């Protein structure tokens, strides 16, 4: 790697810690961001000449803080009275800087920074945008591309989010254990949102949106380094690594979706899978299950199956059952039904989803899955009705075309197998 690439990586990896510390000093997001920018410019000039510092984050915090204080001093000269109170508050910060960096409470700086982005007043799209801008340091242009919206629209969205956060006030007290656990849960959910934003991309959008998945994985690894004994964070990291491992196999050359059962498993990223499996293994040892762990354990069973036929559907059925208890939702039951169809047949699966009809009457996957079960039972006319309903409920033309293609194929296969059995 070149010097510049190294500096880029060092700055990116230091960003949450440095920005978090600067936010603690200045208690103002704008000032902290400006101070960090200033420090990055100096790093780009200084590091190639003097070599990389031993601790890039400490360097950036120190230089950023001094640059911002200089700015305050300069502005103070233009005013009749210097803002002594602002300055004296910062005087002793320098001496304790190195110590604070080693101290485990720098976790709280990063957690606070992440938490600011998932402020409950913000809609989830703004939470993600703000996190990508502030914590990850993506440019507005990059974020706009990833969200497939215009740059000015994204600029507005981020500005509005910042204004809302500023108006609500930032949480600066050191959180207690209960509050920390709550924040960690919120932050984990926000990181998963970032991941899903990237993961739910369709074929043609994958190159643009996949970086969101990488970024989410980077953030969850950061969180895991700060909280190495949280099984749910291990579970979330495992879940994202195992899902993202399939990225190269999820779409064909035309950008059409390839279902899990039809994917070329040799395209799955084995390094990601190995790390995901190691993490879910480690999480399970804690005997403190949670929804992320259950989902990761399901993803792990898919990852472990060399061929689709080798999938351990009995275990997957049990895990969905556990997930239903932890986080009851008709969508989870619907997913479980797919496993039930494999283990106990379509009749049992159909019986499982019938009671969901009311709650999922507007959900196209429900009718797609129901149609597939009916088809397996040879109830072709009913299946067709369900498929038509599914297509009518598709959210995008691409979704509709995918369902239509998939369902057409199912119908065709079914007529083949029926004629074969005659």
């Amino acid at each position, binding site marked *: *790697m070149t010097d510049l*690439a*190294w500096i*880029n*990586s*060092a700055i*990116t*990896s*230091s960003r949450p810690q440095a920005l978090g510390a600067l936010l603690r000093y200045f208690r103002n997001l704008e000032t902290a961001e400006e101070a960090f920018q200033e420090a990055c410019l100096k790093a780009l000039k200084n590091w190639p000449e003097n070599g990389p510092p031993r601790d*890039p984050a400490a360097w950036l915090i120190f230089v950023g803080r001094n640059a911002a204080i200089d700015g305050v001093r300069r502005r103070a000269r233009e005013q009749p009275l210097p803002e002594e109170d602002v300055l004296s508050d910062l005087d002793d910060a320098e001496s304790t800087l190195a110590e604070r960096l080693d101290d485990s409470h720098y976790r709280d700086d990063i957690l606070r920074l992440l938490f600011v982005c998932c402020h409950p007043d913000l809609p989830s799209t703004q939470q993600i945008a703000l996190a990508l801008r502030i914590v990850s340091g993506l440019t507005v242009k990059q974020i706009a591309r990833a969200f497939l919206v215009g740059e000015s629209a994204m600029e507005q969205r981020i500005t509005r989010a910042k204004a809302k956060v500023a108006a609500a006030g930032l949480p600066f007290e050191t959180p207690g254990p209960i509050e920390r656990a709550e924040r960690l849960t919120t932050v984990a959910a926000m990181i998963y949102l970032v991941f899903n934003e990237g993961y739910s991309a369709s074929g043609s959008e994958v190159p643009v949106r996949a970086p969101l998945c*990488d970024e989410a994985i*980077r953030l969850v*690894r*950061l969180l*895991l*380094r700060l909280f*190495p*004994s949280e099984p749910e964070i*291990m579970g979330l*990291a495992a879940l994202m690594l195992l899902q993202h491992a399939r990225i190269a196999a999820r779409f064909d050359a035309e950008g059409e979706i390839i279902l899990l059962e039809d994917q070329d498993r040799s395209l799955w990223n084995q*390094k990601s899978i*190995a*790390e995901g499996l*190691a*993490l879910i*293994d*480690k999480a399970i*040892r804690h005997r403190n299950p949670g929804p992320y762990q259950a989902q990761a354990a399901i993803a792990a069973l898919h990852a472990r199956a060399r061929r689709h036929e080798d999938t351990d559907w009995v275990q997957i059925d049990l895990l969905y059952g556990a997930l239903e208890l932890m986080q009851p939702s008709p969508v989870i039951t619907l997913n479980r039904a797919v496993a039930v169809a494999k283990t106990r047949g379509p009749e049992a699966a159909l019986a499982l989803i019938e009671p969901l009809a009311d709650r999922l009457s507007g959900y196209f996957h429900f009718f797609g899955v129901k149609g597939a079960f009916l088809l397996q039972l040879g109830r072709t006319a009913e299946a067709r009705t369900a498929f038509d309903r599914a297509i009518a409920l598709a959210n995008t033309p691409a979704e509709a075309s995918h369902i239509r293609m998939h369902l057409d194929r199912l119908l065709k296969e079914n007529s083949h197998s029926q004629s074969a059995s005659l």
Partner: protein
Amino acid sequence: MFYAILCYHAEDVVGCWSKEDDDAVMAKLAVVQEKLAKQGRLGPVARLLPTTAAATVRGHGEAPLVIDGPFAETKEQLLGFYLVDCESLDEAVSVANELSIANPGGAHEVRPVGLFRPGTGPT
């Protein structure tokens, strides 16, 4: 005599490499490895998974203390390492426990291996 060469780097920096960056580094390392392999001097090469996937076994016997994360006691020195094929972390932990019984004190860090090449060197 084999000399072990241990690779150190800032994990969060490495974690920021794009796939292209990572591939480029691995390709350059492969050139060095290939040269050594041709000379019959290359022993096993392993790339460890991130420390977040690590666990450390301290103490031994019926209830060894298993700690999440890598082992961070700077007063302890790395004295050697094993490569053991295990089905699961549980199995790896029990192997580490056996080693701890045979050689009490210190700690055994269990780090999943991401990449393994057996090498060509003398045994």
